[in-house]
């Protein structure tokens, strides 16, 4: 790169921050679809953010950031899986590739669904919103939460599952109404 035309480190950092902030929710969702727990997704995302910043200089066209970052995310998930204990259960590589390809194809729809999610969460009954808030707070263990609520952990898991299904259906219905599905 011509040093005269090279962006300053600060401008590059700024550019990275802007792109990463914009695409982070989509990347987080993408990674989440390839690993088997929220905690796993958090670990991969931490590693991914560092990897993206280190390689950012090699990205010639900022308009390609999203596709590039998705490709990096796939590699990061594969590397992370290799480091995990052998008794962990993972999808085979064929299944993972199919999921990754489909998630990339669906990315515009998934962005719109995340937008619609805001209204769908607001439409949940107050007790369900409260449960989501408590269950998804950082560091919360479901068995601790269940004990506080006087319920079994499995009952809380199942309620959260029903809420997530309801939210998928609500976001699909919203997109259909807006002609985006």
């Amino acid at each position: 790169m011509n040093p005269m035309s090279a962006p300053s480190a600060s401008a590059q950092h700024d550019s990275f921050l802007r792109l990463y902030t914009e695409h982070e929710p989509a990347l987080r969702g993408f990674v989440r679809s390839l690993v088997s727990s929220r905690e796993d997704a958090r670990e991969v995302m931490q590693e991914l953010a560092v990897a993206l910043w280190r390689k950012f200089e090699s990205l010639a066209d900022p308009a390609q950031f999203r596709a590039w970052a998705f490709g990096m995310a796939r590699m990061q998930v594969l590397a992370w899986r290799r480091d995990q204990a052998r008794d962990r259960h993972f999808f085979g590589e064929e299944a993972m590739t199919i999921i990754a390809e489909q998630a990339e194809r669906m990315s515009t729809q998934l962005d719109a669904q995340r937008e619609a999610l805001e209204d769908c969460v607001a439409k949940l009954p107050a007790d369900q919103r409260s449960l989501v808030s408590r269950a998804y707070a950082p560091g919360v263990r479901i068995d601790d939460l269940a004990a506080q609520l006087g319920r079994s952990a499995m009952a809380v898991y199942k309620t959260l599952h029903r809420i997530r299904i309801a939210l998928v259906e609500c976001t699909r219905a919203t997109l259909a109404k807006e002609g985006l599905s």
Partner: protein
Amino acid sequence: MRPNDPRLEALHRHAEGIDSAEDVALLEQAVLNDAEFRAFMIEYLHIDSALPEYVGEAAESLRPEREPVRTTRRWFIPATAAAALIITASLWFMRPEADIEVEVLRVADSSLRVGQRVKMQTLALDHGEAQVRLPSDVKLTLSGAGEVRFIDPMHARVTRGKVTVDVGERGKGFVLDTPQTRVVDLGTQFGVEARGDGLTDVMVIEGKIELHDDQRVTPLEQGEALRVDAQRGQQRIVNITGGALPSDWSTGAPPKECSIASVADNFEPVEDYHFYRILPRGLAPGAASYVNRTQVWGPADGKAFPSALMNADLVQTFRGARKRQAYEMQLILTRPCTLYVLMPKSERTPDWLARDFTLTGDEVTLRNGDVGSRIQMPCEVWQRVVTEPGVITLGAAPRKSQGVPLTMYGVAAKPLP
């Protein structure tokens, strides 16, 4: 997909990280062979990944927000039920006032004393302000000349004047009758002004209320406001002038020294009931950015809040405005000023912004709930020097390359020295 599909059960254990080898095998087969299930699983896990973003907002579990559409938000009542409601409402309105004991919490320019407990049927002021706590824990503030009559601890009637109500935890269901409508609180803070011209203004500061008349129930949510006339007609109130306290609200114009006289948009009159709140000299770290959300403005990481923005006149916008592609906001500016747009960073600068504004190099952030919380969105500060009072039109919120709207921007103005 059937609710008892065993793959759904496996998916829920997979999502929670408590899946077995059998679950993974079952899901893997589904992923390889069933495109419909595969799409569902991807959507389900994306939603799972996005839900932590709602922790701050969902914690305030009585603060829902939805896009209002007038045709669906009113619950029209069948004729027989309406007749019963008219009779019931008439009986309600005929109920006599009663003495209740209130505690005086705050007074300004009034003969009442703070801490005083007094039995009263009517709270009336010629001027000043008084805040009282009812036995139901409901806090009611009467600002300026007005009169409130008490019926019981959960029911009052404002005959004239401006009242702000904070129902607290125990006061859910509190009823405030006005000359034109009945307000039923669903856990919130709201304001009502029974005006001398026969109109009643109702605005929701936080939470949710319902307006009841003999024909319908109209739900209103945080950041929405309506004017009700003698014929029960309803009209959106577009501008609220705010102040330091929740009771410092007015549907009147901002003070003369404020650079912004009013805000309008291109929503149809029946399409949206959100208002814009103008806060004279209100921009500072921690100032609320939206009328219907809890996000606040804060400094960029490791930097001070831009001094140029401190104490600027602020327009609090509402989040739903970002979804409209052809959105326009018109500002009436009263004097030469620097107009600022606090724009979420995005790949694509909106054309209207690049054309009419210049980047200042300053940055601010949107933060979730309070100024010390994590950054939700970095924003760039754009400015335009306006040398003549007049109308300035702003455009739509930025969109991602896929067309999905980013967060709604903020607006502020500071008079030129």
